[in-house]
């Protein structure tokens, strides 16, 4: 069953008097358990599409169904609640809260659940263990390397146990070796923890970790290659 379905998705941005056509008719199915890499030139609309799938924004037209929910029917608080349960986000610049230590950053999504404090701490510790950062739990982001910060971000993305992970250039700011470690981690999450992973990347080597690569150009999916 497809966990993500996009039907004739279009997205325009209005900038002053100009209307920018960013996505012009996207049709896409992503199966549960898939590991998909999304590539394409800068400005082709990769981030925009990822944001629509993650429920951070609505399409101008077309249908997006994720995990059975029609995202057009959700908005505001309902959509926020949906995100907290169903999607984990991983960004290029980690987007951790600088004042919180690793453990507390990972705990953040659990503040939206009914879990007890002790249970939250336990789950956060498990997530940190999965990404191999147990010994850095009390460190703040500023005291961690880029790769370590991205691991914290991944722990935060999986702590509430969503089925879908959306990653926007997760290794864009990292060196080769660290990038491979992060991608290896995503592979483990895909394989052993049954997460569906979508990765936007410019790096063909990074895309090599995926089961499937899609290319985008000027707001369209142009070809599909199976690795």
């Amino acid at each position: 069953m497809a966990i993500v379905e996009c039907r004739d998705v279009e997205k325009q941005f209005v900038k002053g008097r100009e209307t920018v056509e960013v996505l012009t008719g996207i049709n896409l199915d992503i199966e549960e358990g898939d590991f998909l890499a999304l590539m394409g030139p800068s400005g082709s609309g990769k981030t925009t599409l990822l944001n629509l799938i993650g429920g951070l924004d609505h399409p101008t037209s077309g249908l997006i169904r994720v995990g059975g929910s029609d995202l057009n029917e959700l908005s505001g608080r309902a959509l926020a609640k949906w995100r907290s349960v169903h999607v984990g986000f991983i960004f290029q610049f980690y987007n951790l809260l600088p004042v919180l230590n690793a453990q507390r950053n990972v705990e953040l999504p659990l503040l939206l659940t009914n879990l007890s404090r002790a249970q939250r701490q336990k789950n956060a510790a498990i997530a940190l263990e999965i990404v191999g950062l147990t010994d850095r739990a009390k460190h703040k982001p500023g005291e961690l390397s880029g790769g370590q910060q991205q691991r914290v971000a991944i722990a935060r993305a999986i702590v509430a146990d969503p089925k879908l992970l959306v990653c926007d250039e997760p290794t864009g700011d990292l060196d080769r070796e660290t990038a491979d470690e992060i991608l290896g981690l995503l592979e483990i999450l895909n394989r052993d923890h049954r997460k569906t992973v979508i990765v936007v990347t410019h790096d063909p080597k990074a895309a090599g970790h995926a089961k499937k690569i899609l290319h985008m150009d000027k707001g369209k999916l142009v070809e599909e290659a199976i690795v």
Partner: protein
Amino acid sequence: MFSQIYEITAMNVRNIGSRIGSSSVIVVGIAGVVAVLVGLLSMATGFNMVLESSSLPNRAIVMRDGTNGELSSNLGIEEFNILSRMEGIELASGELYVIADIPKKETGSPANLVFRGMRQAGLDIRPEFQIVAGRRFEPGRNELVAGVMAAAEFAGLEIGSEIDFRESNWRIVGHFEAQGGAYESEVWADLAVVQSSFRRPGSITSARVLLEDPAQAEAINERIQADPRLDLRLETEAQFYASQGEQRAALINTFGYGVAFLMAIGAVFAALNTMYTAVSTRTVEIAILRALGFGGVPLVFSVMIEALLLAVLGGILGGVVVYLLFDGYTASTLNSGSFSQVAFDFAVTPELLRLGITWALVLGVIGGLFPAVRAARLPITTALRGE
């Protein structure tokens, strides 16, 4: 929703220390506004307190009708005699109110000192009069007693020293208190001696009278107005000082609020600016939290609560600073009605401190709300692209 507000606020408050820079700018900025506001208003409050303690309920002042101060008033001898025999008036003291130029201690430049001549009745009519050092002046001699505020403010009023004015030489024989009232800013001497030294033989400017019944003041004034031999007006001291004080307090209030208002506008913009910066460094943070599923409303609330906490802290800090610096600090003012100096203490009262905290809260709300709402309304995707 409440649990979200609670969790985020708790998190922010726990981490106020980590943002010590932006937090302390807000606290200090608001402390400054509150300090200025409370400081200025404590002046007006202190001034009013002096005037209030200058009056007794059953004491009234009689002046020429149509004059607005003792300096410009004068009473005829015959008028005074009729007045002192009127029904309902227990005791009357005819007094000569003049002004002398005496150098101030601090600046050395001359300022107006009230010189009041009176007979024994003048002291009897003022039970609050109390010699705190030295003795009373004796009738017929060039001796004077100085109020403690006058002695503190003006040069040469120490006991035993001599001072010249109008070609006459005076010896200071005592210092007196008058329950903190305006009289403490005056010097007193024997009526006849003042009259001859200031070349105003037989003249009195005003009378203080003791009423048998304070409720009768209005009725007695009506009888005075009705008497063709008298061109006078009687006011209770409370009324007299209230009208004098109102002008002054109104002036200080207007000035205080005016300056505080300008400063507040400046400070609101400064606070807005710092808060904008403080909160916009959090625009990304707020966007991250929203992406994770936190609601915009709880985020705005928690930023507001934090801003208010910082504002209250600033308000308290400002209040404490003013209290320590100014409470009891003595200032003096030229009284426009009498052209004399009235010294008073700044009074930083609990009401003023409450007012200061209220202002701090208002600043906190204005300074915190707009940037927080702006950050919460910005589309998440836009905010996250903003790196």
